[in-house]
């Protein structure tokens, strides 16, 4: 009887295998297809696999005049500046939202969600018009400002959650033995909130690295960034260079997915948005 039941439950692996196999094909297939294109020299219809493999496209992408290095540099500079500005704004705001009694606290928290909760395309179009008037269009500070407004919701919400997960008695203890409020914040509160703030920095960094629409209207064509390079090479039909650019954008995202739980602990996560 148990042998029969075992056989029966083993049979269940047939439908499971088919469903998981299809899922794996549709999830990893596009990724694998892209990886193939990054090392393709020659590939045309109706061949299932590339006819020649090689790294000549990589050499082209990273050649001094290839444009990719400039885009990569711009993307990294913009992302790092965006993180710096967003955290400089979010750390005081998050601390105030977590610790000090604020009127309309819920409304303030929701206000940071607005840029994510409305279709933002026309907003970027109009920001580009404003920036054009004041000379910020096509400059790195202009792109950084757009990315900050978009990433601020992660920065502020996660920073608020990180600060409220800290036991207030620890701060009180530091105050009791004579530390001033700034010293307490610097030596007690900030180090304790560091993992959560790190998580919010990573979120903002990725959001900036991947952002296309704002960079398209405010940055292009003067400030070249990786997503813009991907778009122009793809619409030019160069699948190799487009795939290599896509891979450069993909790696940080996948690494982040693997490590996010290390920085974003459950005690912080459960407080996000509250």
């Amino acid at each position, binding site marked *: 009887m148990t042998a029969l039941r075992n056989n029966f439950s083993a049979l269940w692996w047939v439908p499971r295998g088919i469903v998981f196999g299809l899922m794996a094909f549709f999830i990893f297939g596009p990724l694998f297809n892209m990886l193939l*294109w990054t090392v393709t020299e020659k590939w045309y219809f*109706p061949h299932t696999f590339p006819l020649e493999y090689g790294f000549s496209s990589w050499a082209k992408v990273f050649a001094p005049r290839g444009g990719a290095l400039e885009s990569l540099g711009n993307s990294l500079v913009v992302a790092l500046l965006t993180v710096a500005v967003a955290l400089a704004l979010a750390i005081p705001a998050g601390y105030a939202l977590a610790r000090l009694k604020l*009127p309309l606290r819920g409304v303030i928290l929701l*206000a940071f969600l607005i840029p994510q909760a409305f279709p933002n395309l026309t907003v*970027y179009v109009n920001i580009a018009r404003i920036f054009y008037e004041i000379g910020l269009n096509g400059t790195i500070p202009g792109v950084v400002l757009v990315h900050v407004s978009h990433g601020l919701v992660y920065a502020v919400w996660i920073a608020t959650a990180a600060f409220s997960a800290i036991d207030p008695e620890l701060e009180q203890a530091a105050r009791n033995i004579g530390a001033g409020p700034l010293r307490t914040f610097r030596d007690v509160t900030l180090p304790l909130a560091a993992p959560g703030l790190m998580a919010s920095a990573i979120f903002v960094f990725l959001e900036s*690295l991947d952002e296309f629409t704002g960079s398209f209207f405010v940055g292009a064509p003067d400030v070249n960034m990786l997503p813009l390079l991907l778009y122009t090479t793809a619409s030019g039909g160069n699948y190799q260079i487009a795939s290599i650019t896509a891979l450069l954008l993909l790696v940080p995202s996948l690494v982040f997915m693997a490590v996010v739980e290390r920085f974003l602990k459950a005690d912080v996560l459960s407080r996000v948005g509250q």
Partner: protein
Amino acid sequence: MSRRLLGLLLVLPALAVIALLFILPLIMSVVGAFQVDGTFGWGNFVKTFDLYTKDIVFTVVIVSLSTVLIGLASIAIGGYLTLGNNPVAVSILRFLYRWPMFIPFIVVGQLMRTFLSKNGMMNNTAVSLGLMTPLDTVSFLDWRGIVFAFVWKQTPFVALLVAGAMASLNRDTIEAARNLGASKLRVLFEIIVPQVAVTLTVGLILSFVTMMSVLSVPLMINAQTPTMLTADIAFRVNAYGDYGVANALGLISLVLASSVAWIYLRISLKERT
């Protein structure tokens, strides 16, 4: 009182960024939609509906269809993670479904351009398996490609929210229903889904708005007519410098997105009274 003032002072710079860089341009776009050559009027909307009615319908159909598919896939994934009794199968699924979550939309567009094209891996695999001949292959880079890209990218996010909500449900009612002989499918749709309905709807509304504002996917996959409103807005601005019609199109997508949120609010208010 001074603590309150200090708190407001600390929040103010961050709020100012949102006000100046999002709310002000949003107001500008609403006002600009009604402005034709410096005077107020409906001109932009007349032109918009003349030229883009087809694209408005196309956008609504594509985004709604994607939302429905994302909802079904998320319920299926969350349901299996909650009710599946084979731990190995559950952990395989948990490993599989999350991959696309953090992949940027522009990269998703490029992935689908290669995967779904006439000579893409999907067609090639079907040909190698003998399911079709190379001459029968067609490119899926039209509305189907956009829907595929949206479902591929957004399902993990909604499924993560839904599975989290399902995991925190009280197991007793589920066990009781199972003991009384209810099938798993019935337990899923009659006990579990109603309890996570709020989380599911919030996830789907966020996805709906996100898909309404993605520019890169329609540009990469299908920029010919009919296309999505985002591609039209970009075209209107870049090719004609026509901010009036672009703003009108933007206002229409804003109305579409907020009407979804409004329907949700009405339903949830009705349920409470």
